[in-house]
């Protein structure tokens, strides 16, 4: 009886204390009102994509996606607050407006895009699922893994792809499923499984954490398509456009050679594409219609850099992961990264 009166009071007090914002017109207005972008990232920390460094600053390709949006909205890439999320929490966090955008190496799939009330805004990393095995097993192909024990994280597309791959190749396997990635890593490291599977990009970063990284090799097979990208809530077209075009701006900048270092010089470029990107010239304003300023893309490139720079810094040659561009090269260089023109 009183307990419930009390509970109501407690909940009421909690709402007040939560500093919550009531539902309003759109995410952009909310974000502008509170002064930062709340961004959901990988709570366990996935090196190269989203992980805090020793000083507690979040770094990574996904983190740069958040910073780009903050730069576009506020002109300042540091106006982001991060929420570390597990695989289980990530979509609920977005649905319940706990975060404004999700950039947590999440695979775009049809059911997620259509049934969970969220929309993927693009692909910031084309990935595919791969396997890592202990060298000592003498395995050189995933096709040799018949009968193997495989460590995998639960509730990921990975878990399902794994099953599909073995089934379609007529092989049996034994999945050892863990709630958290750290636990799956540790179990593989301790020899519980013959193979470890996750997105190929993740394999490289996880391999680095092993007791003896050189004891493991990543197998050549890629068994699935894993287009990883940021997601926003369904039904807020303006915000969706901002997140989508923040990524495109970085791609276009790379395509036309606009970098963090030369962006100021490029403002005087004669190339109309670059002028439109940087909002230079009379009446060239693509920002205002989506609630931003005309120099929105300039701010992104100035604050975060172009896609190529972000890639190299976080996962490419400039990082411990040393992942080749591969599918993530620009379309002009044989990859899949392609942005529609600003026009």
């Amino acid at each position, binding site marked *: 009886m009183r307990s419930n009166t009390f509970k109501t009071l407690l909940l009421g007090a909690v709402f007040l204390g939560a500093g919550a914002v009531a539902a309003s017109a759109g995410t952009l207005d909310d974000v502008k009102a509170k002064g930062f972008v709340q961004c959901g990232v990988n709570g366990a920390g996935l090196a190269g994509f989203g992980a805090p460094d020793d000083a507690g600053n979040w770094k990574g390709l996904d983190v740069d996606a958040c910073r780009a949006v903050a730069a576009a909205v506020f002109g300042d890439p540091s106006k982001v607050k991060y929420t570390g999320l597990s695989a289980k929490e990530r979509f609920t966090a977005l649905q319940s407006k706990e975060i404004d955008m999700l950039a947590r190496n999440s695979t775009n799939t049809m059911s997620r895009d259509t049934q969970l009330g969220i929309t993927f805004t693009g692909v910031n990393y084309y990935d595919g699922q791969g396997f890592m095995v202990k060298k000592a097993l003498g395995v050189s192909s995933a096709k040799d893994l018949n009968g193997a024990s495989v460590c995998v994280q639960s*509730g990921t597309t990975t878990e399902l792809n794994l099953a*599909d791959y073995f089934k379609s190749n007529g092989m049996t396997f034994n999945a050892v499923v863990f709630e958290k990635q750290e636990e799956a890593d540790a179990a593989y490291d301790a020899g519980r499984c013959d193979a470890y599977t996750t997105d190929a990009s993740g394999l490289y970063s996880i391999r680095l954490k092993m007791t003896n990284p050189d004891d493991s090799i990543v197998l050549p097979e890629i068994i699935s398509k894993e287009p990883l990208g940021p997601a926003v809530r369904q039904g807020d077209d303006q915000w969706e456009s901002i997140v989508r075009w923040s990524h495109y701006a970085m791609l276009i900048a790379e395509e036309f050679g606009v970098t963090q270092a030369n962006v100021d010089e490029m403002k005087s470029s004669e190339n109309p594409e670059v002028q439109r990107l940087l909002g230079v010239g009379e009446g060239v304003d693509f920002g205002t219609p989506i609630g931003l300023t005309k120099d929105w893309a300039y701010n992104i490139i100035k604050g975060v850099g172009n896609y190529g720079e972000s890639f190299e810094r976080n996962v490419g040659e400039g990082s411990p992961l040393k992942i080749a561009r591969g599918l993530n090269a620009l379309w002009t260089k044989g990859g899949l990264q392609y942005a529609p023109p600003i026009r």
Partner: protein
Amino acid sequence: MTLRDKTADETPRSWVRAVLYDATIRGWVFQGLVLLALILFAVWVVHNTAANLRAANIPFGFDFLNMRAGFDISQKPIDYTLDSSHAQAFKVGLLNTIIVSVLGIILATIIGFVVGISRLSRNWLLARAATVYIETLRNVPLLLQLLFWYKAVLSVLPGPRQGYVLPFSANLSNRGLTMPRPIPGEGFEIVMWSVPVAVALAWAIARWAKNRQAATGQSFPVFRASLGIVVGLPVVLFVVLGAPLSFEIPELKGFNFAGGMVVHPELIAMLLGISLYTATFIAETVRAGILAVSTGQSEAAFSLGLRPRQTMRLIVVPQAMRVIIPPLTSQYLNLTKNSSLALAIGYPDLVAVFAGSTLNITGHAIEVIAITMAVYLALSLITAALMNWFNARVALVER
């Protein structure tokens, strides 16, 4: 007089006061208000949830249970393939929870009783060792212990090709304990059915012996006879029917053992962690129970000429059990609930399979969590009911 006059003056208001200050009426009004608040709260929650789900375009319902699960589960006590439904995955998870709970309860009870009695031992070393064990393990979180045991089990055991070879074609490696799997042949169900028959027979004999002893004073070796029947009958039938049981021997194929039965390292670590932890609490319960039986009881038994063993069995233990059983019940319930920590070390229990994989894949958070909680609640209530029934049977019949 003045008093009466005063009340008379207030007659018009007095019934209002009577109603206002009437305990029963106040009680009902109060309850009504609470009910109203509860209903409003529930409506508010349901309304919010419905609005949120609608806004997010998430369908609510239990249809997802019939969808193809598509993920593998490492320990499958019943048929389960990649094409099975989420409902089947739920059953597998539930069975795994029951398996680990039942085995854990048995182990924890044995360890707990041994340690609890050891702590009262006159052997100084044994009593101290029991105390150190209890005080160390009960003050460290179970989750930590599970992580520790899992790491320990994995680091102690060698790879499958270097596994320890045990008798009866068993093998122990970091892929688990592989054993031959019994395959029941023709007529084996008769052997299975003879077990409950034998139990019933033993019960009848015990009853007869008790009545005879009450009537004539003659005793009967009930325990030995019952044991003989319960073990003997199935064994005799088994032999008579020509041993209708064959074994599937596990073989090392490729990476792992194929065929046979496997006790996975996750289950081993779970059992180690959960039973060693719960046993510390059971041991304390047992010690308290034994101490609660006054020494006068044993002295009286000795003066009646009972031997120490008989005293323990007939006088001390039955009385101690009355004190032990209620807290023992709650320890069993705790163990069952604690088995949900399995997901931290990859044992596929209900929470790991259903509130883990199924929830994450289908995204039906509300339905999945609600079902999971309901299952644990039901398990708790059933265990509590069974133990209450048992407790009522052994309870002291007061004059």
